[in-house]
């Protein structure tokens, strides 16, 4: 009994001390004030120095919170109870959020730097007049492969993945749209195809790929490919850039049949409390120099045309990450297909995952 009471007291005292410490730290960091801006972004998706700079320039205190999937972010914004002033969803989510009336329209007059965005990336189908969103980063889905592990096999297209020589060498990213899209693309269907028979065909095509597939994994695909656990991976270009940074034997290709073009975008969700600061922040991030610094740090492709001048040439001229306009023509942006069709994609994907060799 004595022992119980002692531990009880120890825990209470420890908690009190910790709470005190947190309080002091929060005060020291300046979180107590009113002029704050809460950013809801993917983890590690911004250069921290820029946040500091923004705080210095404007006197606004930034709270940075993170999410790990678009859908989880959506649920949080839907339910409310929080005050996110800026969120960074992917393109298909913008449509959904707009449908559910979760976004505040942007006041373009407060974002003069919007002119810096490449015209190619303005007025995209998911947000025709950029009423709600400004692109933050963009990229493609493609194939990353290890040139050392596959000396004489060259990969340029989706169909190359069906080569029996690649037995047990492919890692796929765990996304229904990405994997089903790969099947659809290899059959020359659209990535936004919703015909059940086409999807079924794609799923069967994918089933025949199972001998080559080593695993279907999440974010850890970066570690696995960089560590040469497998020779080939189907990944987002941003991840590919990270892997190639770690392992120089890797190369990345956007398949010739076509692929997906994705965007992460800054929006102001309905939960926002400090809309003014949110506009200020968006404008700040679109500044050419700021954007260039952020791009170098994050290493994804920037839609900011003016920023390219401030970036190293070898980065800008890398066609793998800044594909030519001709190639971009072939790329498709995901449309919001509606819940029902998405469920169909998912069901087929689930069946594919359960298909054993």
């Amino acid at each position: 009994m004595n022992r119980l009471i002692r531990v009880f007291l120890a825990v209470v005292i420890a908690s009190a001390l910790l709470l005190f410490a947190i309080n002091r730290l929060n005060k020291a960091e300046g979180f107590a004030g009113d002029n704050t801006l809460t950013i809801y972004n993917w983890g590690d998706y911004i250069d921290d120095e820029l946040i500091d700079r923004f705080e210095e320039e404007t006197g606004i205190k930034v709270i940075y919170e993170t999410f790990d999937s678009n859908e989880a972010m959506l649920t949080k914004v839907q339910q409310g109870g929080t005050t996110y002033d800026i969120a960074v969803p992917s393109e298909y989510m913008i449509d959904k959020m707009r449908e559910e009336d979760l976004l505040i329209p942007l006041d373009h007059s407060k974002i003069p730097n919007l002119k810096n965005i490449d015209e190619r990336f303005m007025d995209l189908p998911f947000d025709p007049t950029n009423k709600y969103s400004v692109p933050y980063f963009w990229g493609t889905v493609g194939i990353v492969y290890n040139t050392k592990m596959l000396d004489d096999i060259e990969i340029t297209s989706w169909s190359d993945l069906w080569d029996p020589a690649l037995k047990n060498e492919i890692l796929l990213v765990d996304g229904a749209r990405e994997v089903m899209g790969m099947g659809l693309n290899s059959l020359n269907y659209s990535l936004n195809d919703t015909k059940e028979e086409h999807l079924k065909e794609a799923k069967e095509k994918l089933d025949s790929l199972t001998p080559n597939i080593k695993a279907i994994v999440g974010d850890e695909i970066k570690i696995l490919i960089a560590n040469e656990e497998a020779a080939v991976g189907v990944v987002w270009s941003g991840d590919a850039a990270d892997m190639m940074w770690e392992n120089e034997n890797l190369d990345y290709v956007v398949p010739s049949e076509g692929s997906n073009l994705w965007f992460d975008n800054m929006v102001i969700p309905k939960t926002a409390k400090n809309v003014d600061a949110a506009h200020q922040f968006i404008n700040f991030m679109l500044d050419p120099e700021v954007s260039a610094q952020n791009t170098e740090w994050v290493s994804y492709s920037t839609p900011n045309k003016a920023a390219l001048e401030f970036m190293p040439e070898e980065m800008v001229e890398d066609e793998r990450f800044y594909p030519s306009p001709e190639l971009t023509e072939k790329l498709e942006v995901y449309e919001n297909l509606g819940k029902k069709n998405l469920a169909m994609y998912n069901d087929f994907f689930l069946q594919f995952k359960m298909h054993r060799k």
Partner: protein
Amino acid sequence: MENKFTRNIYMVPYALWIALFVIAPILLVLYYSFFDIEGNLSLVNYQKFFTPVYLKMTLSSFWYAFLITLISLIVAYPTAYLLTKTKHKQLWLLLIIVPSWINLLLKAYAFLGIFGTYGITNSFLEVIGIGSQQILFTDFSFIFVSVYIFIPFMILPIFNSLIELNPTLIDAANDLGASKWTTFRRVIFPLTIDGVKSGCQVVFIPALSLFMLTRLIAGNRVITLGTAIEQHFLVTQDWGMGSTIAVFLIIIMFLFMSVTGTRKRGI
């Protein structure tokens, strides 16, 4: 005698907890399970559950949870038993729990390194002449890591029931000429059965809905009900179907509890 009210007052927090955090969420989940993906009231989710895809998934969840529980028990029992015989047994017990306080995702990443093609395990296999094997993304690695995660939950209750075991009982059995095995089977094991049951419950029940390891360690070669729920909630946003699977998980758990449930203790 005190009246009934004061007698039961200490149950209030627990009862409140059951009402607010168990019953209310169950009702919520039940409610959602009757809506199809477009928000119409229907039984389509329940129909869908009885298609081969989900039945197969249920079976495989069961099978893996069973294997994980069995292997955890086989490893945990002797461990707990030997721990009770060490000098600083409470310390060693604490040291069994400490690794579980390190973030699971980090440990899973570590296992990716340990089991990988160029990992420590394979280097070891090379040295002893077996040669490199694919360990990651197999049933073996999945079960190994799952057991790794659940083992403290199995060891603790068993340890706690072993430690109260009266040594004189064992001595008596030995004196009566019982072999070690007989002593174990007839004396020790029956006396620790409550601990074993409790251990099996805290391993089997969450093992049914494992999800993250199925992707990280098994590379989605193992698909469990937990994985499917995850998908429905976070990818398709089909909360109806996700809830339906959860309803079945809860039903399975109820069945499991009544099988392993408490009997009146014989003397």
